[in-house]
């Protein structure tokens, strides 16, 4: 266990190192912050002064080394554009993204898995064909277009849910959360639904193929031969077994939801971290982009670790040998 954890930590350190270097080079190649930030009336001297102020006048590898030194002391630098510590900027907006991503994942699991198990068990029913039609459609329609449709349906025609913003937030641990107030929750609904549709479809398909596979295993027949109830067979024998692949994908997808909720955040004007990333790339605000991507990398590493632990908890064959 300990050697496993240290190995994982070592791997993620290397990963972060490589990733940050790539972003450094990438941002350097793509654009010049001085050119973006400088006004039209800047003289050559002004530009030089600006470059010195931002620290981009030195050779790239020196910039990278001093960045690494600062990170080791817990300093991710200052935004070129906002002139504020990068971590403050990110932490201000991260909760909004986490909130919508986790809520979407919750909806996805709670709706998707039962749908999938049902259609796996009743392969010939009409309702199964309908489910499989809708999951295919939901899977294929582009995210942004789904968002626009949702706004049209729920905000324009039925006028039941607001289309933009976070609504009222309630402070918990010094951070505002929409999910704890009724108004906030109603604002959260549409963006979360927008992200959840894909998750529902993915989970339903996973659960369905898992069910179809597990259903024909010997232990399922044997469980029936034992005379235990159908409800118990499904709840204990079937679901416990299909959870193993579902956990893997859920882990990967949760990372994806947090890291790439950008489109949804834009459609619903959700003040999350995705929008910050887009703006920062646009303004070649390198410190923000680098810090954000390091954070996302660490998050993926953590999620994968949690998945590995869950895996072992769900599957005794991994736990004991």
């Amino acid at each position, binding site marked *: 266990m300990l050697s496993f954890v240290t190995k994982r930590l070592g791997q993620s350190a290397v990963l972060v190192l490589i990733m940050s270097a790539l972003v450094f080079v990438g941002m350097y190649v793509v654009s010049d912050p001085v050119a973006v930030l400088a006004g039209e009336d800047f003289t050559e001297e002004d530009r030089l002064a600006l470059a010195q102020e931002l620290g981009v006048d030195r050779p790239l590898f020196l910039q990278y080394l001093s960045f690494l030194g600062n990170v080791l002391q817990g300093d991710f630098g200052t935004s070129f554009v906002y002139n504020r510590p990068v971590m403050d900027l990110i932490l201000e907006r991260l909760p909004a993204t986490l909130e919508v991503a986790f809520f979407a994942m919750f909806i996805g699991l709670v709706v998707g898995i039962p749908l999938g198990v049902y259609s796996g068990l009743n392969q010939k029913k009409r309702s199964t064909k309908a489910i499989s039609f809708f999951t295919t459609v939901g899977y294929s329609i582009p995210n942004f277009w789904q968002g626009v449709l949702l706004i049209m349906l729920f905000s324009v025609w039925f006028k039941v849910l607001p289309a933009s913003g976070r609504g009222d937030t309630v402070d918990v641990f010094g951070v505002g959360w929409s999910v704890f107030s009724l108004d906030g929750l109603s604002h959260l609904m549409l963006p979360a639904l927008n992200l959840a549709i894909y998750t529902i479809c993915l989970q339903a398909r996973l659960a369905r193929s898992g069910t179809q596979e597990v259903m024909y295993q010997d232990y399922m027949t044997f469980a029936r031969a034992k005379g235990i109830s159908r409800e118990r067979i499904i709840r204990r024998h079937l679901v416990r077994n299909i959870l193993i692949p579902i956990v893997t994908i859920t882990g990967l997808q949760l990372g994806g939801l947090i890291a790439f909720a950008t489109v949804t955040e834009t459609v619903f004007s959700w003040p999350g971290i995705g929008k910050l990333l887009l703006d920062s790339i646009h303004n070649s605000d390198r410190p923000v982009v680098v810090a954000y991507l390091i954070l996302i990398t660490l998050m993926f590493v953590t999620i994968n670790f949690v998945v590995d632990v869950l895996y072992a908890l769900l599957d005794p064959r991994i736990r*004991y040998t």
Partner: protein
Amino acid sequence: MTDQLVHVENLTVAYPMADGAVFRAIDGFSMAVKRGQIVGVVGESGAGKSTIGKATLGLLDENAVIDTGGVMLDEVMVTRLEEHAFADIRGSKVGYIYQNPMTALNPVLTIGEQLIEAIEANTNKRGQDARAYAIDLLEQAEVPLPEERLSKYPHQLSGGLCQRIVFAIAISAKPDLIIADEPTTALDVTVQKAVLGTLVKLTRQENIAIILITHDMGVVAEMCDYVYVLRHGKLVEEGSTAQVLSNPSEPYSRELMAAIPRIDHKIERFAVPGGLGKAEDRERAIDYLMSRKADAGVEGAPLLSVKNLSKTFTMKATALKAATDFKAVSDINFDVFPGETLGIVGESGSGKSTVGKMILGLHKPDPGYEITYKGHNIDDLTSKAQKLAHRQSLQCIFQDPYSSLNPRMTAGDNITYALRAHGVLSRAQALELSGDLMELVGLPRASARKMPHAFSGGERQRIGIARALSFRPDFIFCDEPTSALDVTVQAELLNLMKDLQDQLGLTLLFVSHDLAVVRQMCDRVMVMRSGEAVEIGACDKVLVAPEHEYTLGLLAAMPRFRPEEVA
């Protein structure tokens, strides 16, 4: 309550097929079982044996149709019941024992949960009572440390223990009948005997009847009072065990009995039809195979010599567990002489296949070993040509005829693709050669164009043999080549291998868990247990008067098929 428990009356179960035809898994079959009686149902795969058990429990596939007849259990026509009505039958009146205990138990639930849920579903015991009864049942099924086992998972226990747990589940509600579908096929022979003993003890106590479905005549001879022989869903013969086994009246039953390998004496060939293809068809293939480079090493010296062969596998660490080492093979030494067959026997996990794989170069042995082939240390081979010649000279026949052929290539391409990859053969030559080899192994030349799924298991194994032969090898490692096959098919295949060996002077390393098969095929035998060789010597000695007590135990545990003694 009458003495008659089960009455299968003219049962026909049909499956509609894709092309509109109907496949009858069981066709007009009748049988009767009295209370407390042990009745055997024997036959080869596809004979419809399992269908009888599944029909009795309402576990047939959804598309199965009961065409005629049915199964009467205690005056109830169970084959006409609705799904919910089976709740009173499954587990409570009829217990079911599955072929493979490792797959019958759910891998992610504890033994305790799986046993207690059956108790709670079929008896009026709940909670602590049910738990206490579970421990009691495990004790009766002779599971050591029953209380501790309740919190274990199936993969932590051996196959034999898992089967005892399945027994405990099956008898939990004291049913009238137990359907045992190949209950010991997946178990090692030493385990099989004890497990069957337990099953008989448990059922005798409660006067439970057993329908024992099996392909193993030895098991039938030891357990059953009465036996039904099935073939292709139809009844071939029925009668008392002694009569059917020692004096079968139908030709198929006679063939079946003749195909069973005997441990007590060695015969030249099995008395079954089949073997090599027709003499005039196979000449060209023989010529091709005999044209191999006659480099058999030094006269009188071993073809293959193995010294200090060991293999350690390391299992990777996972989130909740450290890395562990597992010694699969330790310090094996043996020689194989040209033209001889050396057998390796042992129970599953004894490392017998690993030995073969190391010789073929599929696993890297632990350092300190020495493998000499045709007088050269195989690690001294340096040039590409030498290595290629060496690899072609050693070939392999695999255990599973289904997964060992590439399903997307024709049979012919499966036989020759490696030679084509080496650039030795043109397309036309490859077609010619695969046809010749198909004929040699007794398959029609034209079927080289068919895909593997169009062949039966035995035919696929013949293709596997043809593929091994295509390289003109001197040495073939046969890894349980017949263990997945029915006994008559096995007999045909063993005949074929003997014929080929006679014709071509091949040297074989023959791995098997079946002592009787080894007795029929091998000149010498090595007995392995947990990675170590316990005994090596001539078959006539080791399998007749063994020195090591482990070998003695193996021999004693084998169910004896000696029809002359049953009678």
